[in-house]
Protein backbone atom coordinates (compact mmCIF):
# COMPACT_ATOMS: atom_id res chain seq x y z
CA UNK A 1 0.00 0.00 0.00
CA UNK A 2 2.17 2.87 -1.23
CA UNK A 3 -0.50 5.45 -0.42
CA UNK A 4 -0.63 4.41 3.20
CA UNK A 5 3.14 4.52 3.43
CA UNK A 6 3.38 8.01 2.10
CA UNK A 7 0.76 9.12 4.56
CA UNK A 8 2.74 7.61 7.43
CA UNK A 9 5.88 9.29 6.12
CA UNK A 10 4.07 12.60 5.99
CA UNK A 11 2.92 12.22 9.62
CA UNK A 12 6.44 11.33 10.62
CA UNK A 13 7.85 14.46 8.91
CA UNK A 14 5.31 16.64 10.66
CA UNK A 15 6.11 15.07 14.02
CA UNK A 16 9.83 15.55 13.58
CA UNK A 17 9.47 19.17 12.59
CA UNK A 18 7.40 19.82 15.68
CA UNK A 19 9.46 20.68 18.74
CA UNK A 20 6.59 19.97 21.11
CA UNK A 21 6.38 16.45 19.71
CA UNK A 22 10.10 15.85 20.14
CA UNK A 23 9.98 16.89 23.80
CA UNK A 24 6.83 14.87 24.46
CA UNK A 25 7.97 11.69 22.74
CA UNK A 26 11.41 12.02 24.31
CA UNK A 27 9.87 12.11 27.77
CA UNK A 28 7.67 9.11 26.98
CA UNK A 29 10.57 7.03 25.66
CA UNK A 30 12.58 7.86 28.77
CA UNK A 31 9.79 6.79 31.14
CA UNK A 32 9.00 3.67 29.13
CA UNK A 33 12.64 2.58 29.37
CA UNK A 34 12.69 3.44 33.07
CA UNK A 35 9.57 1.35 33.68
CA UNK A 36 11.07 -1.61 31.79
CA UNK A 37 14.48 -1.65 33.46
CA UNK A 38 13.32 -0.50 36.93
CA UNK A 39 13.22 -3.96 38.58
CA UNK A 40 16.75 -4.71 37.38
CA UNK A 41 18.40 -1.49 38.52
CA UNK A 42 16.69 -0.81 41.87
CA UNK A 43 19.27 -0.76 44.67
CA UNK A 44 16.75 -2.20 47.15
CA UNK A 45 13.46 -4.05 47.16
CA UNK A 46 11.00 -1.17 47.65
CA UNK A 47 8.78 -3.31 49.86
CA UNK A 48 11.53 -4.42 52.24
CA UNK A 49 12.51 -2.54 55.39
CA UNK A 50 16.14 -1.84 54.53
CA UNK A 51 17.19 0.82 57.01
CA UNK A 52 16.23 3.08 59.87
CA UNK A 53 13.10 5.15 59.17
CA UNK A 54 13.27 8.86 58.23
CA UNK A 55 16.89 8.80 57.05
CA UNK A 56 18.31 11.74 55.13
CA UNK A 57 19.72 11.10 51.65
CA UNK A 58 23.09 9.34 51.71
CA UNK A 59 25.26 7.38 49.32
CA UNK A 60 23.40 4.22 50.36
CA UNK A 61 19.89 5.65 50.21
CA UNK A 62 20.00 8.28 47.47
CA UNK A 63 16.67 9.85 48.52
CA UNK A 64 16.64 8.69 52.14
CA UNK A 65 14.10 6.34 53.67
CA UNK A 66 10.42 6.68 54.46
CA UNK A 67 8.53 6.36 57.73
CA UNK A 68 9.00 2.59 57.97
CA UNK A 69 12.52 2.42 56.55
CA UNK A 70 11.91 1.62 52.88
CA UNK A 71 14.25 3.10 50.27
CA UNK A 72 12.46 6.04 48.61
CA UNK A 73 14.61 5.98 45.45
CA UNK A 74 13.68 2.34 44.81
CA UNK A 75 10.01 3.10 45.50
CA UNK A 76 10.14 5.82 42.83
CA UNK A 77 11.74 3.60 40.19
CA UNK A 78 9.21 0.80 40.63
CA UNK A 79 6.38 3.32 40.97
CA UNK A 80 6.97 4.31 37.34
CA UNK A 81 5.63 0.90 36.29
CA UNK A 82 2.46 1.22 38.33
CA UNK A 83 1.62 4.76 37.25
CA UNK A 84 2.33 4.11 33.57
CA UNK A 85 0.48 0.78 33.49
CA UNK A 86 -2.65 2.16 35.16
CA UNK A 87 -2.56 5.21 32.91
CA UNK A 88 -2.24 3.19 29.70
CA UNK A 89 -4.80 0.54 30.60
CA UNK A 90 -7.36 3.10 31.77
CA UNK A 91 -6.80 5.07 28.55
CA UNK A 92 -7.38 1.87 26.55
CA UNK A 93 -10.74 1.34 28.26
CA UNK A 94 -11.64 4.99 27.77
CA UNK A 95 -10.69 5.15 24.09
CA UNK A 96 -12.09 1.69 23.37
CA UNK A 97 -15.52 2.72 24.61
CA UNK A 98 -15.13 6.19 23.07
CA UNK A 99 -14.26 4.77 19.65
CA UNK A 100 -17.15 2.32 19.56
CA UNK A 101 -19.66 4.95 20.69
CA UNK A 102 -18.21 7.59 18.35
CA UNK A 103 -18.17 5.26 15.32
CA UNK A 104 -21.67 3.90 15.89
CA UNK A 105 -23.19 7.30 16.65
CA UNK A 106 -21.45 9.05 13.79
CA UNK A 107 -21.97 6.40 11.15
CA UNK A 108 -25.54 5.35 11.83
CA UNK A 109 -26.85 8.78 12.86
CA UNK A 110 -30.54 9.26 13.54
CA UNK A 111 -32.03 7.95 16.74
CA UNK A 112 -28.99 5.90 17.73
CA UNK A 113 -26.86 9.00 17.38
CA UNK A 114 -29.08 11.27 19.43
CA UNK A 115 -29.52 8.66 22.17
CA UNK A 116 -25.78 8.07 22.42
CA UNK A 117 -25.01 11.79 22.38
CA UNK A 118 -27.51 12.35 25.17
CA UNK A 119 -25.58 9.78 27.16
CA UNK A 120 -22.32 11.54 26.35
CA UNK A 121 -23.74 14.88 27.50
CA UNK A 122 -24.85 13.30 30.75
CA UNK A 123 -21.50 11.67 31.47
CA UNK A 124 -19.73 14.95 30.70
CA UNK A 125 -21.78 16.82 33.27
CA UNK A 126 -21.06 14.46 36.18
CA UNK A 127 -18.13 15.75 38.24
CA UNK A 128 -15.95 12.70 37.86
CA UNK A 129 -13.57 12.93 40.80
CA UNK A 130 -16.33 12.86 43.44
CA UNK A 131 -18.06 10.03 41.56
CA UNK A 132 -14.78 8.12 41.36
CA UNK A 133 -14.23 8.64 45.06
CA UNK A 134 -17.73 7.35 45.74
CA UNK A 135 -17.25 4.28 43.53
CA UNK A 136 -13.73 3.56 44.75
CA UNK A 137 -14.94 3.81 48.34
CA UNK A 138 -17.73 1.30 47.75
CA UNK A 139 -15.92 -1.09 45.41
CA UNK A 140 -12.77 -1.06 47.49
CA UNK A 141 -9.35 -0.03 46.27
CA UNK A 142 -7.72 -2.40 43.80
CA UNK A 143 -5.66 -2.21 40.63
CA UNK A 144 -8.47 -3.24 38.24
CA UNK A 145 -11.16 -1.22 39.98
CA UNK A 146 -9.04 1.90 39.51
CA UNK A 147 -8.61 1.20 35.80
CA UNK A 148 -12.28 0.45 35.21
CA UNK A 149 -13.52 3.43 37.21
CA UNK A 150 -11.17 5.86 35.44
CA UNK A 151 -11.76 4.36 31.99
CA UNK A 152 -15.53 4.20 32.25
CA UNK A 153 -15.86 7.80 33.39
CA UNK A 154 -13.58 9.46 30.84
CA UNK A 155 -14.77 8.03 27.49
CA UNK A 156 -17.33 10.74 26.73
CA UNK A 157 -15.05 13.49 25.41
CA UNK A 158 -13.15 11.17 23.00
CA UNK A 159 -16.47 9.70 21.85
CA UNK A 160 -17.72 13.13 20.91
CA UNK A 161 -14.52 14.06 19.07
CA UNK A 162 -14.39 10.78 17.16
CA UNK A 163 -18.06 11.08 16.23
CA UNK A 164 -17.53 14.47 14.59
CA UNK A 165 -14.59 13.04 12.65
CA UNK A 166 -16.76 10.14 11.45
CA UNK A 167 -19.44 12.62 10.40
CA UNK A 168 -16.98 14.50 8.23
CA UNK A 169 -15.55 11.31 6.70
CA UNK A 170 -19.05 10.09 5.92
CA UNK A 171 -19.76 13.02 3.62
CA UNK A 172 -16.73 12.26 1.47
CA UNK A 173 -17.31 10.64 -1.85
CA UNK A 174 -15.83 7.22 -1.27
CA UNK A 175 -18.07 6.36 1.66
CA UNK A 176 -21.18 7.43 -0.23
CA UNK A 177 -19.99 5.51 -3.27
CA UNK A 178 -19.33 2.41 -1.20
CA UNK A 179 -22.78 2.60 0.30
CA UNK A 180 -24.39 3.16 -3.09
CA UNK A 181 -22.87 -0.01 -4.56
CA UNK A 182 -23.93 -1.99 -1.51
CA UNK A 183 -20.61 -2.57 0.25
CA UNK A 184 -21.32 -4.17 3.66
CA UNK A 185 -21.30 -1.73 6.57
CA UNK A 186 -18.50 -3.61 8.34
CA UNK A 187 -16.27 -3.29 5.30
CA UNK A 188 -16.99 0.43 4.87
CA UNK A 189 -16.27 1.03 8.54
CA UNK A 190 -13.06 -0.97 8.50
CA UNK A 191 -11.66 0.16 5.18
CA UNK A 192 -12.83 3.71 4.82
CA UNK A 193 -13.90 5.15 8.13
CA UNK A 194 -11.46 3.58 10.59
CA UNK A 195 -8.25 4.69 8.81
CA UNK A 196 -9.47 8.28 8.98
CA UNK A 197 -10.29 7.93 12.66
CA UNK A 198 -7.11 6.23 13.86
CA UNK A 199 -4.78 9.28 13.98
CA UNK A 200 -7.38 11.17 15.99
CA UNK A 201 -8.05 8.18 18.23
CA UNK A 202 -4.33 7.88 18.86
CA UNK A 203 -4.02 11.50 19.92
CA UNK A 204 -7.10 11.09 22.14
CA UNK A 205 -5.54 7.96 23.62
CA UNK A 206 -2.38 9.81 24.56
CA UNK A 207 -4.38 12.66 26.11
CA UNK A 208 -6.55 10.15 28.01
CA UNK A 209 -3.41 8.45 29.34
CA UNK A 210 -2.11 11.74 30.70
CA UNK A 211 -5.43 12.39 32.44
CA UNK A 212 -5.63 8.86 33.80
CA UNK A 213 -2.19 9.09 35.39
CA UNK A 214 -3.17 12.34 37.06
CA UNK A 215 -6.47 10.92 38.29
CA UNK A 216 -4.79 7.76 39.58
CA UNK A 217 -2.33 9.97 41.48
CA UNK A 218 -5.20 11.94 43.05
CA UNK A 219 -7.14 8.83 44.04
CA UNK A 220 -4.02 7.18 45.48
CA UNK A 221 -3.19 10.37 47.33
CA UNK A 222 -6.65 10.24 48.93
CA UNK A 223 -5.90 6.69 50.10
CA UNK A 224 -8.09 5.06 47.44
CA UNK A 225 -5.24 3.58 45.41
CA UNK A 226 -4.26 -0.04 45.10
CA UNK A 227 -2.81 -0.91 48.51
CA UNK A 228 -0.63 -3.72 47.12
CA UNK A 229 1.27 -1.89 44.38
CA UNK A 230 2.72 1.47 45.32
CA UNK A 231 2.37 4.23 42.73
CA UNK A 232 3.82 7.74 42.94
CA UNK A 233 0.50 8.95 44.32
CA UNK A 234 0.69 6.37 47.12
CA UNK A 235 4.18 7.55 48.06
CA UNK A 236 2.82 11.10 48.39
CA UNK A 237 -0.12 9.79 50.43
CA UNK A 238 2.30 8.45 53.04
CA UNK A 239 4.46 11.56 52.85
CA UNK A 240 1.35 13.65 53.59
CA UNK A 241 0.11 11.34 56.34
CA UNK A 242 3.49 11.44 58.11
CA UNK A 243 3.80 15.24 57.71
CA UNK A 244 6.93 15.00 55.55
CA UNK A 245 6.22 18.41 54.03
CA UNK A 246 6.60 20.08 57.42
CA UNK A 247 10.24 19.00 57.76
CA UNK A 248 13.30 19.02 55.51
CA UNK A 249 12.13 15.67 54.16
CA UNK A 250 9.91 17.51 51.63
CA UNK A 251 12.99 17.94 49.46
CA UNK A 252 13.60 14.22 48.91
CA UNK A 253 10.24 12.67 49.81
CA UNK A 254 7.68 15.12 48.36
CA UNK A 255 9.42 16.87 45.43
CA UNK A 256 10.67 13.83 43.42
CA UNK A 257 7.42 11.83 43.05
CA UNK A 258 5.43 14.94 42.09
CA UNK A 259 8.07 15.99 39.60
CA UNK A 260 7.98 12.56 37.97
CA UNK A 261 4.17 12.65 37.73
CA UNK A 262 4.37 16.12 36.16
CA UNK A 263 6.98 15.04 33.61
CA UNK A 264 5.12 11.89 32.57
CA UNK A 265 1.78 13.69 32.30
CA UNK A 266 3.39 16.55 30.37
CA UNK A 267 5.11 14.02 28.10
CA UNK A 268 1.76 12.48 27.22
CA UNK A 269 0.07 15.88 26.91
CA UNK A 270 2.76 17.26 24.59
CA UNK A 271 2.66 14.13 22.43
CA UNK A 272 -1.14 14.34 22.35
CA UNK A 273 -1.08 17.99 21.28
CA UNK A 274 1.39 17.21 18.52
CA UNK A 275 -0.57 14.19 17.31
CA UNK A 276 -3.77 16.24 17.35
CA UNK A 277 -2.11 18.77 15.07
CA UNK A 278 -1.03 15.97 12.72
CA UNK A 279 -4.48 14.42 12.75
CA UNK A 280 -6.35 17.67 12.27
CA UNK A 281 -4.78 19.84 9.54
CA UNK A 282 -6.94 22.77 10.60
CA UNK A 283 -4.81 23.13 13.72
CA UNK A 284 -1.53 23.33 11.84
CA UNK A 285 0.01 26.74 12.09
CA UNK A 286 1.42 26.86 8.57
Amino acid sequence: MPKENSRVAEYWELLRANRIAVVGLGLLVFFALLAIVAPFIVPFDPDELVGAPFQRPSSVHLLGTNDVGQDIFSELLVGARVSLLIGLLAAMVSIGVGCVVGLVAGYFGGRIDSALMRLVDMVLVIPFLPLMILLAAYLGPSFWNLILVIGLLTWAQPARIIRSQVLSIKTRGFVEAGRAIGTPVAVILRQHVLPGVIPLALSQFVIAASQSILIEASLSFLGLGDPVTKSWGTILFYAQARGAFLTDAWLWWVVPPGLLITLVVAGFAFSGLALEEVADPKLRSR
Partner: protein
Amino acid sequence: MLGRLLGGRMLQYVMLIVVILVLNFMLPRAMPGTPLAFLAGEDVGLMTTEQREEVMAQHGLDRPLPHQFARYMGNLLQGDFGYSFQQRRPITDILMERLPWTLLLAGANLVLTTIIGVLVGAVAAWRRGGRADAGLLATFVFMAAMPSFWIGMILVAVFAAQLGWFPVYGAYSTYAGLTGWERIVDIGRHLVLPLTSLVFISVSSVFFTMRYSMLSVLREDYISMARAKGVPERLVKYRHAMRNALLPVLTIFMLNLGFIFSGAVVIETVFAYPGIGRLLFQAVLTRDYPVLQATFLLITMTVIIANIVADLLYPLFDPRVRVR
Protein backbone atom coordinates in the same frame (compact mmCIF):
# COMPACT_ATOMS: atom_id res chain seq x y z
CA MET B 1 -37.69 26.70 18.63
CA LEU B 2 -35.67 27.81 21.64
CA GLY B 3 -38.34 26.46 23.91
CA ARG B 4 -38.10 23.05 22.30
CA LEU B 5 -34.33 23.17 22.39
CA LEU B 6 -34.34 23.99 26.09
CA GLY B 7 -37.07 21.46 26.71
CA GLY B 8 -34.83 18.71 25.36
CA ARG B 9 -31.90 19.87 27.47
CA MET B 10 -34.04 20.13 30.58
CA LEU B 11 -35.37 16.63 30.09
CA GLN B 12 -31.77 15.48 29.89
CA TYR B 13 -30.91 17.16 33.19
CA VAL B 14 -33.97 15.67 34.86
CA MET B 15 -32.89 12.25 33.61
CA LEU B 16 -29.41 12.85 34.93
CA ILE B 17 -30.75 13.85 38.34
CA VAL B 18 -32.83 10.66 38.43
CA VAL B 19 -29.80 8.55 37.47
CA ILE B 20 -27.70 10.15 40.22
CA LEU B 21 -30.45 9.66 42.81
CA VAL B 22 -30.97 6.02 41.83
CA LEU B 23 -27.21 5.42 41.85
CA ASN B 24 -26.96 6.94 45.30
CA PHE B 25 -29.88 4.86 46.49
CA MET B 26 -28.73 1.59 44.96
CA LEU B 27 -24.98 1.64 45.74
CA PRO B 28 -25.22 0.75 49.45
CA ARG B 29 -28.01 -1.73 48.77
CA ALA B 30 -26.27 -3.49 45.89
CA MET B 31 -23.09 -4.17 47.87
CA PRO B 32 -22.52 -7.71 49.11
CA GLY B 33 -23.65 -8.35 52.68
CA THR B 34 -26.35 -6.43 54.52
CA PRO B 35 -26.71 -2.73 53.76
CA LEU B 36 -26.70 -2.11 57.50
CA ALA B 37 -22.97 -1.44 57.63
CA PHE B 38 -23.36 1.17 54.89
CA LEU B 39 -26.57 2.81 56.03
CA ALA B 40 -26.51 2.63 59.81
CA GLY B 41 -22.84 2.13 60.63
CA GLU B 42 -23.75 -0.82 62.81
CA ASP B 43 -21.15 -3.42 63.61
CA VAL B 44 -23.01 -6.28 61.98
CA GLY B 45 -20.58 -8.96 63.14
CA LEU B 46 -21.41 -8.42 66.81
CA MET B 47 -25.19 -8.61 66.43
CA THR B 48 -27.56 -11.53 66.75
CA THR B 49 -29.96 -12.23 63.93
CA GLU B 50 -32.89 -10.75 65.91
CA GLN B 51 -30.97 -7.57 66.67
CA ARG B 52 -30.05 -7.26 63.05
CA GLU B 53 -33.65 -7.62 61.94
CA GLU B 54 -34.77 -5.09 64.52
CA VAL B 55 -32.30 -2.46 63.26
CA MET B 56 -33.24 -3.30 59.67
CA ALA B 57 -36.87 -2.63 60.50
CA GLN B 58 -35.94 0.62 62.25
CA HIS B 59 -34.33 1.89 59.08
CA GLY B 60 -37.13 0.55 56.92
CA LEU B 61 -34.74 -1.84 55.21
CA ASP B 62 -37.14 -4.77 55.54
CA ARG B 63 -39.62 -3.13 53.17
CA PRO B 64 -39.61 -3.69 49.39
CA LEU B 65 -37.22 -1.48 47.38
CA PRO B 66 -39.88 0.88 45.94
CA HIS B 67 -41.02 1.66 49.49
CA GLN B 68 -37.45 2.30 50.55
CA PHE B 69 -36.93 4.58 47.56
CA ALA B 70 -40.07 6.58 48.33
CA ARG B 71 -38.89 7.04 51.89
CA TYR B 72 -35.43 8.07 50.70
CA MET B 73 -36.87 10.64 48.26
CA GLY B 74 -39.30 11.94 50.86
CA ASN B 75 -36.48 12.59 53.28
CA LEU B 76 -34.36 14.31 50.65
CA LEU B 77 -37.21 16.60 49.59
CA GLN B 78 -37.56 17.72 53.19
CA GLY B 79 -33.87 18.64 53.20
CA ASP B 80 -33.06 15.64 55.38
CA PHE B 81 -29.82 14.08 54.18
CA GLY B 82 -29.78 11.50 56.95
CA TYR B 83 -27.59 11.05 59.96
CA SER B 84 -23.81 10.81 60.25
CA PHE B 85 -23.01 7.89 62.47
CA GLN B 86 -19.42 9.05 62.87
CA GLN B 87 -20.17 12.61 63.96
CA ARG B 88 -23.50 11.63 65.55
CA ARG B 89 -25.51 14.53 64.18
CA PRO B 90 -27.72 15.35 61.18
CA ILE B 91 -25.80 15.60 57.91
CA THR B 92 -27.69 18.74 56.87
CA ASP B 93 -26.13 20.60 59.82
CA ILE B 94 -22.66 19.42 58.86
CA LEU B 95 -23.13 20.46 55.22
CA MET B 96 -24.35 23.93 56.21
CA GLU B 97 -21.25 24.39 58.35
CA ARG B 98 -18.90 23.37 55.55
CA LEU B 99 -20.56 25.08 52.60
CA PRO B 100 -19.42 28.69 53.23
CA TRP B 101 -15.75 27.70 53.27
CA THR B 102 -15.90 25.85 49.99
CA LEU B 103 -17.89 28.68 48.43
CA LEU B 104 -15.25 31.17 49.58
CA LEU B 105 -12.36 29.09 48.22
CA ALA B 106 -14.03 27.96 44.99
CA GLY B 107 -15.66 31.34 44.35
CA ALA B 108 -12.40 33.28 44.73
CA ASN B 109 -10.71 30.71 42.51
CA LEU B 110 -13.38 31.01 39.83
CA VAL B 111 -12.99 34.79 39.65
CA LEU B 112 -9.18 34.78 39.59
CA THR B 113 -8.95 31.85 37.18
CA THR B 114 -11.30 33.48 34.69
CA ILE B 115 -9.58 36.87 34.72
CA ILE B 116 -6.06 35.46 34.42
CA GLY B 117 -7.00 32.77 31.88
CA VAL B 118 -8.89 35.19 29.60
CA LEU B 119 -6.18 37.85 29.56
CA VAL B 120 -3.23 35.51 29.10
CA GLY B 121 -5.14 33.37 26.59
CA ALA B 122 -5.95 36.43 24.47
CA VAL B 123 -2.33 37.56 24.51
CA ALA B 124 -1.14 34.11 23.42
CA ALA B 125 -3.64 34.05 20.55
CA TRP B 126 -2.56 37.47 19.29
CA ARG B 127 1.02 36.24 19.18
CA ARG B 128 0.17 32.90 17.64
CA GLY B 129 3.19 30.96 16.50
CA GLY B 130 5.59 33.39 18.15
CA ARG B 131 7.97 32.77 21.01
CA ALA B 132 5.62 34.14 23.65
CA ASP B 133 2.79 31.90 22.46
CA ALA B 134 4.96 28.76 22.46
CA GLY B 135 6.36 29.64 25.88
CA LEU B 136 2.93 30.25 27.38
CA LEU B 137 1.56 27.07 25.80
CA ALA B 138 4.36 24.95 27.25
CA THR B 139 4.04 26.62 30.65
CA PHE B 140 0.32 26.00 30.86
CA VAL B 141 0.66 22.38 29.72
CA PHE B 142 3.17 21.86 32.54
CA MET B 143 0.91 23.59 35.04
CA ALA B 144 -1.98 21.38 34.03
CA ALA B 145 0.28 18.34 34.33
CA MET B 146 1.09 18.98 37.99
CA PRO B 147 -0.91 17.07 40.58
CA SER B 148 -2.93 19.62 42.55
CA PHE B 149 -2.15 18.09 45.93
CA TRP B 150 1.55 18.18 45.15
CA ILE B 151 1.45 21.93 44.41
CA GLY B 152 -0.30 22.33 47.75
CA MET B 153 2.31 20.30 49.61
CA ILE B 154 5.17 22.22 48.01
CA LEU B 155 3.56 25.58 48.82
CA VAL B 156 3.07 24.51 52.44
CA ALA B 157 6.64 23.23 52.70
CA VAL B 158 8.13 26.45 51.30
CA PHE B 159 5.84 29.25 52.45
CA ALA B 160 4.44 27.84 55.67
CA ALA B 161 6.94 25.37 57.14
CA GLN B 162 10.23 26.90 55.94
CA LEU B 163 9.48 30.62 55.62
CA GLY B 164 6.60 30.81 58.09
CA TRP B 165 4.74 33.43 56.04
CA PHE B 166 1.39 31.69 56.07
CA PRO B 167 -0.42 29.26 58.37
CA VAL B 168 0.00 25.55 57.60
CA TYR B 169 -3.61 24.44 57.68
CA GLY B 170 -7.23 25.30 58.47
CA ALA B 171 -9.39 28.24 57.43
CA TYR B 172 -8.97 30.38 60.58
CA SER B 173 -7.06 30.44 63.88
CA THR B 174 -9.22 28.34 66.15
CA TYR B 175 -8.50 29.62 69.65
CA ALA B 176 -7.34 33.15 68.94
CA GLY B 177 -10.84 34.58 69.47
CA LEU B 178 -10.29 37.18 66.77
CA THR B 179 -13.10 39.54 65.81
CA GLY B 180 -13.87 42.14 63.17
CA TRP B 181 -11.07 43.24 60.89
CA GLU B 182 -8.49 40.95 62.53
CA ARG B 183 -10.65 37.94 61.83
CA ILE B 184 -11.00 38.89 58.17
CA VAL B 185 -7.21 39.26 57.84
CA ASP B 186 -6.77 35.90 59.59
CA ILE B 187 -9.17 34.18 57.20
CA GLY B 188 -7.44 35.86 54.26
CA ARG B 189 -4.03 34.65 55.38
CA HIS B 190 -5.36 31.11 55.66
CA LEU B 191 -6.87 31.40 52.19
CA VAL B 192 -3.70 32.43 50.31
CA LEU B 193 -1.97 29.05 49.91
CA PRO B 194 -5.00 26.85 49.13
CA LEU B 195 -6.29 29.49 46.71
CA THR B 196 -2.93 29.76 44.97
CA SER B 197 -2.71 26.00 44.47
CA LEU B 198 -6.27 25.87 43.18
CA VAL B 199 -5.73 28.73 40.70
CA PHE B 200 -2.48 27.09 39.63
CA ILE B 201 -4.19 23.89 38.52
CA SER B 202 -7.45 25.28 37.14
CA VAL B 203 -6.29 28.32 35.20
CA SER B 204 -5.02 26.36 32.20
CA SER B 205 -8.46 25.15 31.08
CA VAL B 206 -9.62 28.77 30.77
CA PHE B 207 -6.36 29.70 29.06
CA PHE B 208 -6.67 26.94 26.44
CA THR B 209 -10.34 27.70 25.78
CA MET B 210 -9.73 31.42 25.41
CA ARG B 211 -6.69 30.95 23.19
CA TYR B 212 -8.48 28.53 20.89
CA SER B 213 -11.66 30.58 20.70
CA MET B 214 -9.69 33.77 20.09
CA LEU B 215 -7.77 32.06 17.27
CA SER B 216 -10.95 31.05 15.50
CA VAL B 217 -12.52 34.49 15.97
CA LEU B 218 -9.43 36.19 14.57
CA ARG B 219 -9.89 34.16 11.38
CA GLU B 220 -13.46 35.46 10.89
CA ASP B 221 -14.26 37.80 8.03
CA TYR B 222 -15.53 40.62 10.20
CA ILE B 223 -12.09 40.93 11.78
CA SER B 224 -10.44 41.35 8.37
CA MET B 225 -13.27 43.70 7.46
CA ALA B 226 -12.71 45.83 10.56
CA ARG B 227 -9.00 45.98 9.84
CA ALA B 228 -9.63 46.85 6.21
CA LYS B 229 -11.93 49.67 7.29
CA GLY B 230 -9.01 51.05 9.26
CA VAL B 231 -10.36 50.39 12.74
CA PRO B 232 -7.43 50.83 15.14
CA GLU B 233 -5.80 47.51 16.10
CA ARG B 234 -6.53 47.98 19.82
CA LEU B 235 -10.22 48.40 19.09
CA VAL B 236 -10.24 45.36 16.81
CA LYS B 237 -8.69 43.32 19.59
CA TYR B 238 -10.86 44.45 22.46
CA ARG B 239 -14.19 45.29 20.89
CA HIS B 240 -14.43 42.95 17.92
CA ALA B 241 -12.34 39.92 18.78
CA MET B 242 -12.28 39.57 22.53
CA ARG B 243 -15.97 40.10 23.12
CA ASN B 244 -16.90 37.38 20.70
CA ALA B 245 -14.18 35.04 21.90
CA LEU B 246 -15.54 35.23 25.44
CA LEU B 247 -18.57 33.09 24.66
CA PRO B 248 -16.93 29.65 25.01
CA VAL B 249 -15.29 30.97 28.17
CA LEU B 250 -18.73 31.46 29.65
CA THR B 251 -19.47 27.79 29.04
CA ILE B 252 -16.18 26.70 30.55
CA PHE B 253 -16.82 29.08 33.45
CA MET B 254 -20.03 27.27 34.32
CA LEU B 255 -18.52 23.83 33.72
CA ASN B 256 -15.58 24.78 35.91
CA LEU B 257 -17.93 25.11 38.85
CA GLY B 258 -18.05 21.34 38.88
CA PHE B 259 -14.39 20.70 38.27
CA ILE B 260 -13.47 23.27 40.87
CA PHE B 261 -15.54 21.47 43.48
CA SER B 262 -13.75 18.26 42.65
CA GLY B 263 -10.39 20.03 42.46
CA ALA B 264 -11.13 21.49 45.87
CA VAL B 265 -11.58 17.96 47.30
CA VAL B 266 -7.88 17.30 47.00
CA ILE B 267 -6.71 20.83 47.88
CA GLU B 268 -8.95 21.03 50.95
CA THR B 269 -7.51 17.71 52.09
CA VAL B 270 -3.92 18.94 51.86
CA PHE B 271 -4.68 22.12 53.78
CA ALA B 272 -7.22 20.59 56.18
CA TYR B 273 -9.54 23.32 54.91
CA PRO B 274 -12.95 22.72 56.52
CA GLY B 275 -15.02 22.66 53.30
CA ILE B 276 -17.22 20.17 51.48
CA GLY B 277 -14.24 18.49 49.79
CA ARG B 278 -12.50 17.65 53.03
CA LEU B 279 -15.81 16.36 54.36
CA LEU B 280 -15.92 13.95 51.42
CA PHE B 281 -12.38 12.81 52.16
CA GLN B 282 -13.05 12.37 55.88
CA ALA B 283 -16.15 10.37 55.05
CA VAL B 284 -14.02 8.06 52.87
CA LEU B 285 -11.44 7.61 55.63
CA THR B 286 -14.00 6.82 58.32
CA ARG B 287 -16.24 4.90 55.91
CA ASP B 288 -19.10 7.24 56.83
CA TYR B 289 -21.26 6.23 53.85
CA PRO B 290 -24.31 8.48 54.45
CA VAL B 291 -22.03 11.54 54.56
CA LEU B 292 -20.19 10.30 51.48
CA GLN B 293 -23.47 10.07 49.59
CA ALA B 294 -24.86 13.39 50.77
CA THR B 295 -21.66 15.22 49.82
CA PHE B 296 -21.62 13.58 46.42
CA LEU B 297 -25.27 14.49 45.90
CA LEU B 298 -24.66 18.11 46.86
CA ILE B 299 -21.65 18.46 44.55
CA THR B 300 -23.45 16.83 41.62
CA MET B 301 -26.59 18.90 42.05
CA THR B 302 -24.52 22.09 42.14
CA VAL B 303 -22.90 21.13 38.86
CA ILE B 304 -26.21 20.31 37.21
CA ILE B 305 -27.71 23.59 38.37
CA ALA B 306 -24.64 25.43 37.04
CA ASN B 307 -25.18 23.75 33.68
CA ILE B 308 -28.86 24.65 33.60
CA VAL B 309 -28.03 28.28 34.41
CA ALA B 310 -25.39 28.26 31.65
CA ASP B 311 -27.94 26.99 29.14
CA LEU B 312 -30.43 29.66 30.17
CA LEU B 313 -27.84 32.44 30.05
CA TYR B 314 -26.35 31.44 26.73
CA PRO B 315 -29.05 33.00 24.50
CA LEU B 316 -28.70 36.29 26.39
CA PHE B 317 -25.07 36.52 25.31
CA ASP B 318 -25.23 34.98 21.87
CA PRO B 319 -28.00 36.36 19.67
CA ARG B 320 -27.37 33.63 17.09
CA VAL B 321 -28.74 31.01 19.48
CA ARG B 322 -31.76 33.20 20.13
CA VAL B 323 -32.72 33.54 16.48
CA ARG B 324 -32.47 29.84 15.76
